[in-house]
Every structure is written in structure tokens, then in C-alpha cells.
């Protein structure tokens, strides 16, 4: 008996990388069967989230302990040039931790709160299916070491993102999802072209082998390498909303249901950024990036995105739209860090990626809670919300302070490393842009806090309340929310699970800001690993 148990734990430990990826995927596939018993389905989602977080923590622990080298898992037992490999390195462990750590609170928030935004048990079950598919695909992106496998996971993630956007019963959501689908497919076709060029000149799909082959032959095939690099860059830039290519993002992220916007803004675009990082640093290598001046391009694009995204966020009056534009700006920081080409900059970018994932999901979740309580989306109409919903608004405030980069909150450390990285890189401009970005960030986030905490609620006419929100039609159709104006007495914090989710995320922000230790260590090691010249 004892022998059997140890054998089983050994087997689970040995197969943990693949379990982390396939558990969400297979549970997702089975969920539609349990559509009638939605509580059971929700329980399964949370169970998978807890298991995934435990697995990610364990993998991070192993990687931190091991200190060097990567754990390579061969799918089907086939060795590298033929089979698909999963690598558990520092980069994979840190991103996996972020994915699982954010998706668990988001699913906690979604449980029980979703029906009025999505409508109907069948549709709720479908929402969870897409959600888990997205989580599984993101975990796969973190772990995989195969170029084409990356493409497949990117496609799975894209389709489930579009499904999540369109899951809200609203014409605007369908329109945004269609635009997103077209542009994302365009982006993945470009990425596929790039993969085709890499495969044609190297004959390998494994990242390590392709990188070796590329470094041997790139001088004779300069144009092809350049072409492949730009195709991959533009393709992933479309998908992760780098500034001039961000056009789909504000509509898609603001018209999705709140948990979906949280995971889309927090995790999905980060997954594509990690893919871009893997393609650039583990396939092409730092030498080729410098040779083709992609690092300067990344820094420039990042700077433009920071300024432009933040400036565009300021005039938005719709809360979720403002947050969506803020995502465009914040993505710039990460691209800037990818282009700095030194240890501090890259580690800062990875840490900022993690902290932005946590912060932006907190912001979207608390915004969603406020919107579903007040039935209003405009910032100017949120007056007095802070006193009625203290937990929600406190989470929002903490997340805003973190996004601006106040010390003791997680955004500060990422920005600090980005600044030291850019000073080390010898250019002064990125530093200025990073600080200016913080100021602009305060410009668009402080009004929300001021309105919500310090302005008293107006005495408003009764009939105006429920009419203007996007959920009026949904209310009528699902008949689960009572019609008529919202009484101000009803305005209070959301249920216990939602509060728990918000509190967990807020604690994560403060913990990352005060004791960043392990995650920062992983990020630094990953940066050092990626920057090794081959």
C-alpha cells in the first residue's frame, strides 16, 4: 500500500509539467456535460485552479532549488529533434506561477457572479470551458519548447479569447469579437509565415536545435532571417496590442464580461509577449537581435506605446475602456524591457509582466464589481461608491497605487529595475519616458479614486438608474436581476467569494511589492539565461 502511494506520487511528480497543461484542457472539454449542474462545474473550475496553483508553486520550488539547468520533459518519450519538448526553466516557472496565481482568483470571482452578464446555465458552462482552455493554452505557452506547438497553443488561446469576448449577450461584444478575430488571425498567419521561414532554412522545429542551426547559417541567409524575424515580431505585436496595432483591444477588453476582461488584459496578451520573448531570445538569440537592430525597435515601440496608450486613456469616460487603454500603455513597459538587452532590464520586464498581470486583473475585477452593483459604467457617475463598497474600492485603490509605481506596491519594483536597466543600457530617454508614464498613469487613475471616495453620492431621479447600462437588455432576458432602479441601500460589496478574490489579489500586490524575493530571483535567473550569447 505504502509502496503504491509512493509510486503514484513519483509518477505525478515526474509528469507534473504535462499535468499542469492538460488538466485545464481536459476538464474544460468535459464541462459542457455538467451544464445543468452548474455548481458542480464551478466547483471543478476552482478545483482545477487550486491544483494548477499548487503544481506551479511546486515547479517553481523545484526550479529555485535546482539552481541551474532546465528540466526537460519529452512528450511520448521521443527525444528532441523529433518529439515535442516541455522545458521547465526559470522563465517557464515564473510565467506559470503568474498564470495560475491570477487565474484562480479570477475564477473565484466569476463563480456565481456570471449569470447576469453571460445569461443562462448553458452559456455559463461554455464560458468556463473557454476560460479553462485559455488557462491551459497559456500554461502550455510557458512550458513548450517547440515552435509549431507554440503556434497551435497561440491559436487555441486566440479562439478562446474571442469566445470569451463574445460571451456577453450584447451586440457590441459580438462586433468587438469579430474585429478581434480578424486581426488576431491576421497576426497568427504572419507568425505562421515566420515559422515557415525558420523551418525552411533550419529544418528544425525544436527551439534549441533551430537556434543552433540559425547561428551557423544566418550570414548566408540574411534576408530570410530578417524576414522571419519581422514577421514574428509584427504577428505577435498585433496579438499583444503594441501601440499602432492595438485597435482591437479597447473594444474587445471593455465589452467582455468582467472576469473575462480581467484574464484577457491580465494574462492573454502576456502569453503572446512570452511567446515573442521565446522566439526572439531562444530561437534567434541576442546576437541576431542586436545584428538586426530589433532591440532598438522594441525600445522605441515600447516608449511610443507608453506615452500614446496613457494619453489615450485620459479622455475616456467609460471605466472599463479607460482601463483597456491603460493596458495598451502598460504593455509598452514590457516591450521596452524586452529591448533593453541587459540583465536588469529583462528581469524588470519579467517582474513588471507579473505585477501588471495581478494589478490589471484586480482593477478589472473591482471595476466589474462596481459596475454590476451600480449598473453604471461612466466614471463621473461613480460618486460615493467608495463608502458603500469599501473592500472593492480599497482593492481598486491599492491596484492603482501599484500601477502608478508607489513604493511598497508591486509596480514599483518592476519600474525600478526597468529604470536601472535603461540607465545601464546608456540611454537616458527610456528613463524619462518611464517616469512620465507613471505621471500619466496617476492622471488617469486618481480621478476615479477621488470621485469614488471623496465625492458624495448625488440625489438622483429614480427612473434614470437602470436604463443606461449595457445590462438592461440582459436583465430583461434573464429575469434574474429585478427590474427597476437600483436602490442606494442595495449598493454594497459583492459576495464573499468575490471579496475573497479581491483580497487575495490585493495581498498579492502588496506581497510582491514588499517581499519580491522568489519571483524576482526567478526573473533575474531567467534574464541571465536568456541573455547568454550562443
Amino acid at each position, binding site marked *: 500500500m505504502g509502496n503504491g502511494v509512493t509510486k503514484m506520487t513519483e509518477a505525478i511528480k515526474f509528469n507534473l509539467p504535462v499535468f499542469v497543461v492538460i488538466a485545464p484542457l481536459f476538464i474544460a472539454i468535459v464541462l459542457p456535460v455538467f451544464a445543468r449542474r452548474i455548481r458542480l462545474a464551478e466547483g471543478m473550475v476552482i478545483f482545477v485552479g487550486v491544483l494548477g496553483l499548487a503544481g506551479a508553486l511546486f515547479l517553481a520550488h523545484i526550479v529555485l532549488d535546482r539552481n541551474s539547468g532546465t528540466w526537460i520533459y519529452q512528450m511520448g518519450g521521443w527525444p528532441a529533434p523529433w518529439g515535442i519538448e516541455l522545458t521547465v526553466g526559470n522563465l517557464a516557472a515564473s510565467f506559470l506561477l503568474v498564470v495560475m496565481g491570477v487565474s484562480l482568483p479570477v475564477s473565484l470571482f466569476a463563480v456565481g457572479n456570471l449569470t447576469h452578464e453571460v445569461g443562462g446555465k448553458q452559456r455559463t458552462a461554455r464560458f468556463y470551458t473557454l476560460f479553462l482552455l485559455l488557462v491551459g493554452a497559456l500554461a502550455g505557452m510557458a512550458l513548450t519548447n517547440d515552435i*509549431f506547438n507554440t503556434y497551435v497553443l497561440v491559436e487555441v488561446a486566440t479562439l478562446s479569447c*474571442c469566445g470569451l469576448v*463574445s460571451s456577453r449577450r450584447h451586440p457590441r461584444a459580438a462586433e468587438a469579437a*469579430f474585429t478581434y478575430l480578424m486581426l488576431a488571425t491576421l497576426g497568427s498567419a504572419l507568425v505562421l509565415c515566420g515559422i515557415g521561414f525558420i523551418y525552411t532554412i533550419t529544418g528544425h522545429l525544436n527551439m534549441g536545435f533551430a537556434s543552433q542551426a540559425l547561428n551557423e547559417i544566418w550570414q548566408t541567409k540574411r534576408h530570410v532571417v530578417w524576414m522571419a524575424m519581422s514577421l514574428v515580431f509584427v504577428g505577435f505585436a498585433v496579438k499583444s496590442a503594441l501601440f499602432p496595432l492595438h485597435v482591437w483591444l479597447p473594444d474587445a477588453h471593455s465589452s467582455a464580461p468582467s472576469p473575462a476582461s480581467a484574464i484577457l488584459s491580465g494574462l492573454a496578451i502576456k502569453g503572446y509577449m512570452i511567446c515573442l520573448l521565446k522566439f526572439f531570445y531562444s530561437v534567434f538569440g541576442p546576437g541576431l537581435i542586436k545584428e538586426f537592430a530589433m532591440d532598438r525597435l522594441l525600445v522605441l515601440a515600447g516608449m511610443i506605446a507608453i506615452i500614446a496608450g496613457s494619453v489615450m486613456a485620459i479622455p475616456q469616460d*467609460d471605466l472599463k475602456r479607460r482601463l483597456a487603454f491603460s493596458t495598451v500603455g502598460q504593455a509598452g513597459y514590457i516591450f521596452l524591457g524586452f529591448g533593453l538587452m541587459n540583465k536588469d532590464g529583462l528581469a524588470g520586464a519579467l517582474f513588471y509582466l507579473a505585477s501588471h498581470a495581478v494589478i490589471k486583473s484586480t482593477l478589472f475585477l473591482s471595476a466589474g464589481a462596481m459596475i454590476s452593483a451600480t449598473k453604471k459604467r461612466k466614471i463621473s457617475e461613480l460618486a460615493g461608491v467608495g463608502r458603500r463598497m469599501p473592500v472593492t474600492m480599497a482593492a481598486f485603490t491599492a491596484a492603482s497605487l501599484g500601477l502608478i509605481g508607489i513604493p511598497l506596491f508591486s509596480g514599483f519594483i518592476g519600474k525600478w529595475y526597468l529604470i536601472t536597466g535603461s540607465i545601464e543600457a546608456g540611454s537616458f530617454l527610456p528613463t524619462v519616458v518611464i517616469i512620465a508614464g507613471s505621471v500619466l498613469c496617476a492622471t488617469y487613475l486618481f480621478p476615479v479614486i477621488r470621485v469614488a471616495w471623496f465625492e458624495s453620492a448625488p440625489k438622483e431621479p429614480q*427612473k434614470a438608474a437602470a436604463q443606461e447600462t449595457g445590462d*438592461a*437588455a440582459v436583465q430583461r432576458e434573464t429575469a434574474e436581476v429585478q427590474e427597476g432602479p437600483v436602490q442606494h441601500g442595495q449598493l454594497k460589496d459583492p459576495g464573499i467569494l468575490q471579496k475573497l478574490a479581491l483580497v487575495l489579489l490585493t495581498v498579492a500586490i502588496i506581497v510582491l511589492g514588499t517581499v519580491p524575493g522568489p519571483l524576482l530571483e526567478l526573473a533575474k535567473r531567467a534574464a541571465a539565461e536568456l541573455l547568454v550569447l550562443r
Partner: protein
Amino acid sequence: MRILLEKLIVNYPYFFAVILFVIGVLTVLTRSNLFKKLLGINIMESAVFILFIAAGNIRGGTDPILDTSKPEAVYINPLPSALMLTGIVVSVSVTAFALSLIIRLYREYGTADARQIAQMRNSALKAADQAGRDNYRHPDRSNGKRGDKNDRSNQI
């Protein structure tokens, strides 16, 4: 010059793939009808497939199926075709999803034209703003008529 031309002619599949890709992208970006956008996506993806398969093809090779009666046969690379199988799966699922979105949009707006949909949405938003916050009432949706499409799109 002659060598360059010869190279171009010998590698004609890439040439056609690029032309098809450009036509596909053009269709996606310039036609405002949603169906045309979808057809453009399909053209674009098939262009990428041609690119991949041409990379794995050998002039005068045989299918990658083991045939013991022809021991000296030159087999082509089977990997690109296996990869493009996945690509076809993806393109079919994208098409199906886009079609379901088109039907939904048509039901809501009464048209399948991106420009008209945007116009309707903007004009409805403007009307909602002018009507003012206090006395604006959302049109009742439960009367079952498909009639006034403009009013249905006024919510953010």
C-alpha cells in the same frame, strides 16, 4: 539578371503564395462586408499553406507512403503536410466561429456590413447622449419585433 529570373521561375510556388497572401490581406482590410473579410482570411491562410508545402516538396519526389516495391524512390518531407493539417483545422474552426458571429450580428443590426454597423452604433450612441441621462428610456426589446435596428445598439 538571367540567373535571378531563373531562380524566380523555379521557385514559383512562393511567388504565388505571396500574391495570394497579399490579395487575402487586401480583402480583409478593404472590403467592409463581413463575409468578404472571412473569405479573405481563408485565402490568406491557404497562401501560407502553399508556402509551407512548397518548402517540403521535392520536384519529382513521391508521396510519403512506404512502398516496398520502389526501393529507390525519393520521398518528400512529410512534416510540413502534417503541420498544415493542423493549420486547416484552425482555419475551419476560425471560419465556423466567425460565421456564428456574423449570424449574431445580423440578428442584432440587420446587416452584415462592418461600416453600416459602425454607423448605426455611433448614431445610436449620439442619440442616447442627446436624449440626456435622465429621461432616456431603453426601447423595449420584448415586443418581439426586429423592426428598429438602430435602437437596439445604443448601449455600450
